[in-house]
């Protein structure tokens, strides 16, 4: 009985008696969810355009953040560093297409997936070698993002909104709108969707598969840069960032592998869900449940709605 009370009633009583804490938790979950969504977005872009499940997306986020900070430390102005990082990602996209994807055309999806794991290791080794593995702070102010926080007093307490988190949410929304327009209105976007539908048909109407792959990897790189800046602002820039990349998998399961808005909404569900669960139900289990809670939600989805909320119904069930 006591256990039932602790599970079913006590957390809600706590939510009701400290509403400011509850709102703070919601906000934190919302911001974390946006960032999970951004990482998942990188996965979705590449999966949509080439059917490759790109395991290296989290490490691209780390690479973006790390190279940006390192360029800045070399004395290059912040905005020029951003441009340099973009150039780096374009070169990387081109190399990946030329050296890996082009060699593996027509291979099974599993093989392509494993090759991106190999790529992950190459990037980890190279990035640690060149930029060093020491955690460093993200150059938020130098990039012109506001710092400090907004305080909103309520119910004898107060809720803090970090300015950088607000910027992250705003920029995430802008980026999703731009991507949605890019995918549906521009010529390249139509090309991307055509490639995703059918490689051969796309080739036969004159769409260059290789070019499309370079573009989509580059766009995923831009998404990684944005994610890297904001995630780096919340915690230090280090290789520990890639562990959050594993959270993108449950996000994809919930949102669906092929849906841009699904990635963001899945991210929000995971972010909010795990924050609330950790704060109100976590102590019952000895805290630290954030590590696996997302996967449990994903498992439930897999068993009852395997294509996710917005995914195409392509999944093959056993």
């Amino acid at each position: 009985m006591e256990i039932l009370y602790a599970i079913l009633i006590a957390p809600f009583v706590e939510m009701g008696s400290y509403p400011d804490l509850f709102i703070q938790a919601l906000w934190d979950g919302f911001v974390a969810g946006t960032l999970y969504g951004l990482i998942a977005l990188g996965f979705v872009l590449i999966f949509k355009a080439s059917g490759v499940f790109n395991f290296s997306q989290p490490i691209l986020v780390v690479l973006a953040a790390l190279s940006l900070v390192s360029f800045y430390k070399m004395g290059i102005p912040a905005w020029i560093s951003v441009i340099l990082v973009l150039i780096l990602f374009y070169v990387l996209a081109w190399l990946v297409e030329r050296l890996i994807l082009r060699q593996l055309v027509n291979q099974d999806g599993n093989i392509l997936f494993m090759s991106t794991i190999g790529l992950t290791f190459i990037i980890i080794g190279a990035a640690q070698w060149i930029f060093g593995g020491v955690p460093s702070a993200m150059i938020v102010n130098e990039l012109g993002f506001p710092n400090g926080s907004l305080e909103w007093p309520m119910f004898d307490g107060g809720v803090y909104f970090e300015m950088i988190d607000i910027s992250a949410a705003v920029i995430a929304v802008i980026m999703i709108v731009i991507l949605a327009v890019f995918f549906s209105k521009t010529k390249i976007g139509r090309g991307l969707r055509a490639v995703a539908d059918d490689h051969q048909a796309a080739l036969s109407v004159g769409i260059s598969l290789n070019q499309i792959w370079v573009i989509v990897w580059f766009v995923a790189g831009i998404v990684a840069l944005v994610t890297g800046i904001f995630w780096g602002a919340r915690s230090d820039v280090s290789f520990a960032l890639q562990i959050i990349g594993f959270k993108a998998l449950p996000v994809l399961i919930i949102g669906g592998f092929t849906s841009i808005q699904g990635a963001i909404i899945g991210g929000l569900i995971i972010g909010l869900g795990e924050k609330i669960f950790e704060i109100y139900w976590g102590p019952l289990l000895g805290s630290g449940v954030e590590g696996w809670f997302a996967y449990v939600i994903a498992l439930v989805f897999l068993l009852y709605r395997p294509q996710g909320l917005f995914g195409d119904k392509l999944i093959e069930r056993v």
Partner: protein
Amino acid sequence: MFYRETGQFKSKYKEELAAFPLAEDKVGIAILLVIAYVFIPIFGIPGLSFEFTMGAIMIPVFIFTITTLGLNILLGFAGQISLGTGAFMGVGAYSCYKIMTIFPDLNIIICVILSGFVTAIVGMIFGLPSLKIKGFYLIVATLAAQFFLEWAFIRVAWLYNYNDSGGIEGTNKEMFGLIVSGPQSDALTRYFIVLTLLVLLTWLASNVIRGRIGRSWMMIRDMDIAAELIGVRPLTAKLSAFAFSSFYIGISGALMVFFWLGAAEVESFDVSHSFTYLFMVIIGGLGSITGSYMGAALVWVIPVLIKEIGKTAFGFDAFVMENFSIIFLGVAIVVILIVEPHGLARLWQITKQKLRLWPFPY
């Protein structure tokens, strides 16, 4: 020339079905066993110190071969992908530790094998989602197992007897008057025990795979619907694959802690290790026992040798060599996938075919 089957006649079915029907194979295996049991303990590997040979190369390679065999049974033979290998090794290690504290007088080998059974049960529980989903989706289910178990290894203090360090540690264990495990044990004794277990487990695996259960795994892997139509039950086939594979992985986890590292914390079982074991299977070759040996040896030994040679011969610092070996591993995976997606085992097969015909081209 070197390798041919002409003139080797069989007069009984039993001989046809033997594990090594060819005389060349029998001789080859016998030579390998003699090298492993006699030559390496006496002479070591030329150019490397004995301590280094045992502690950094032979014992870990044998242990990881058992892991790779286990994962290969699941991934290569039954076609179910898993990224929870690291955590399942942890289950083996922690359960072996608990069994040893509850029954202090029990022989350590029996503890290790019992921990394999415990892991098999845990593996079956986390294998349940495979009945409904497959492919990438199963990765998520096994990652759930990985992260949940990692959390349990930290938070459930009962698992490490409530000690302050939060890790598990081996104590001296005797068997037939010899200290076989723990800080005072001799590397050579541990080597022989690990080697013997490896030989026995390989023998078991090769027979199970050739038998009814193994063939039902392969049918499920190749086409699950067709397999179901001709009477293979997916439930038993998949769960038995998870159980069997976890049994091996659990044993290797227990061996890793009590016969190699001596002590371990949760970091020894994290997700990056799961990836390393996956690489061993991929590079070695999916669905091949020989491949498991080659994959484990290559993925483990090459980075160790790179680091050692870089340090002693060229004087590079450890940080550079560490990164170099990570890059090397990544490049090796990509190259193997491009050149021969079926891994080293396929290359070995091609070599054998060539040896059959040598010196003629066909």
